[in-house]
C-alpha cells in the first residue's frame, strides 16, 4: 500500500529546488568539463519527474528551465521547453521510480541528459549562437551531458537508497513499491 505525504513531498521539492538553484548559480559556473557546464535545472526537474511525475513534474521542469534561461545568455524559453518535454517523458510511466533502483534511474537520466543537451545546443546552433555543428555537439553538448550525469549520481543515490531506506523503516514517504528488480525489468521492456 502506498501512503503519500503531500506536505513532505512539497517540502522535499522546495529544498531540492533551493539546493539545485544554489548549485546552478554558484558551482556550475566554476566547474566545467571543457566547455560543458553541469545543468542542475535538469537534475532538479528529473528528480521531481521521477519522484512525482505528472503535472507537477512538467511544471517543475518548465520553471527550472525558465530559471536556467534567466541565469544564462540563451534565449528565454529554450531550456524551459526542453525540460518540460523531458520531465513529461521521465514521469510518464509511474511514480517514485527512483526508489531502490539506482541503475534504472541513472539510465533514464543519462538518456534525458543527452537528449536535452543535444536539442538545446542544436537549437542554439540554429539561432546562430554557434557556427559549427561539431563544436555544438562534441565540445558543448556531450561535455554538458556527461557532467550533468556525474552530478546527478549523488542525487540518484539519495533518492534511490537513502530516502527509500528511510521510508522503508517507518518514514512518512511512500512505501510498498515493487522492489529493486521491477523497474529494471520495465526499463528493459521499454527498450531504453
Amino acid at each position, binding site marked *: 500500500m502506498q501512503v503519500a505525504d503531500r506536505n513532505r513531498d512539497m517540502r522535499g521539492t522546495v529544498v531540492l529546488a533551493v539546493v539545485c538553484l544554489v548549485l546552478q548559480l*554558484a558551482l556550475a559556473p566554476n566547474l566545467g568539463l571543457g566547455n560543458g557546464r553541469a545543468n542542475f535545472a535538469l537534475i532538479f526537474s528529473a528528480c521531481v519527474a521521477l519522484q*512525482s511525475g505528472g503535472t507537477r513534474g*512538467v511544471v517543475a521542469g518548465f520553471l527550472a528551465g525558465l530559471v536556467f534561461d534567466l541565469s544564462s545568455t540563451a534565449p528565454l*524559453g529554450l531550456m524551459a*521547453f526542453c525540460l*518540460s518535454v523531458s520531465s*513529461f517523458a521521465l514521469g510518464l510511466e509511474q*511514480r517514485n521510480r527512483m526508489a531502490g533502483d539506482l541503475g534504472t534511474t541513472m539510465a533514464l537520466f543519462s538518456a534525458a541528459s543527452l537528449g536535452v543537451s543535444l536539442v538545446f545546443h542544436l537549437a542554439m546552433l540554429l539561432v546562430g549562437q554557434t557556427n559549427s555543428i561539431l563544436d555544438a555537439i562534441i565540445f558543448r553538448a556531450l561535455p554538458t551531458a556527461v557532467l550533468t550525469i556525474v552530478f546527478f549520481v549523488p542525487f540518484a543515490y539519495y533518492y534511490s537508497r537513502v530516502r527509500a531506506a528511510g521510508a522503508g523503516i517507518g518514514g512518512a514517504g511512500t512505501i510498498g513499491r515493487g522492489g529493486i528488480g521491477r523497474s529494471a525489468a520495465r526499463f528493459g521492456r521499454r527498450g531504453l
Partner: protein
Amino acid sequence: MPLSSSGRQPRSALSNSRQSTGGRALIACVVVSLALFTASSRMGDEGPLAAARSAFQTVTTPIRYLGDTVASPFRGLGNVVVNLTADQATLSELQAENDQLRARNVELEEAAQTAERLQGLLDLRDAYDLQSTAARIISGSSDSWSTTVSIDKGTSSGVNAGMPVTAASGVVGQVVESASASSRVRLLTDENSSISAMIQSSRVQGMLNGSVTGQLKLTLVGTDQQVSVGDVVVTSGLGGVFPKGLPLGEVTSVESSPGALELDIVVEPYSHAESYEEVLVITSLTEGQQATADDIAAADAQDQQGDDAADEEGTDSGEQAQDTETSE
C-alpha cells in the same frame, strides 16, 4: 481499483494514481516556452524579457559571488589537467614567451636601477644646489698608470677640464681632459689626485691624496689635531674647484709615528667609480659653495701652527746635537 484515467497500469495504490500524466500541463508549458523563445529571439537584449533577466542576474549576484569566492582557491587545479595535456607546440610557444618575458624583466630591472641612481643624483643636486650636468661613465682607464674613467659629455655639453665630478654617494674625481663629446675624469684614488678636504666634525683641514695602492691619505694634518676613526671627510672648498661640504670618505685609520709632525690618516672613499654608471659634472660653483674667508683664515692658522711646531722640533734637535758634540 484504478482511479486514474490517464492510461496507466492498474494499481492498488492510493497515493499517486489520481495524478494525470501532465499532458495538458505539457502543452501549456510548451506553448509558453515557444512563445517566450520567439519573443526573446525577436527582442534580443531589449524589452521586458531582457529586463527580467537583468533583474534575475542582480538578485542572484550574491550567490554567484559566494560560489566564485569558494571556488577561487581551487581554480588553479583545472590548469593542472590543461598543462599535462598540452601539446609540444603549446609548450614551445610558452617557452619562447617565457624567454621573452625573462629578458623583458631583466631590461625593466635595469631601468629601475638606473632610475634609482638618477634619482640619487637629482637628490644630491637638489641638496647641494649644484649647477651640474649628468653624464654616463662609458669606459674605464685604458692604461695601467692612471686611475681614470671616461664620461660621455665633453665641451659641447659645457664640460671642461678641472670640473669636479660626483656621484650620489660622494665625490668621484675631477675632469682632466675634455673632448667635444667625451671627457676623462681622474678618480680620487689616482696617485696624482689631490683635493682640499677637512674633517667634518672637527673642521681640521688637510689634503686628500690618492696613492698607487688605491688608498686615500689625508695629509697636512698635524699631530696635535683631533682625528678619530669614523670621522667623515668632506671637501673644504679651498682652491675654488670643489664645492664645500661634498662627502669624500670616512677615516679608517689614524696613526701618529714618533717624531712625525703629521698624522698618518687613511680614508675609505664613499664613491667607487666602478660601481657607478651615471655621475654629475659640476659646471660652476655658487658663492655659498666656495670657502669663506673664515675657512681660509682657519686653514692659514692651522698651517702656521704646524710650521711653529716644526720649528720647535727643529730647535730641539739642534740643541740635542750641540749637547752631544759638547759631551764628546
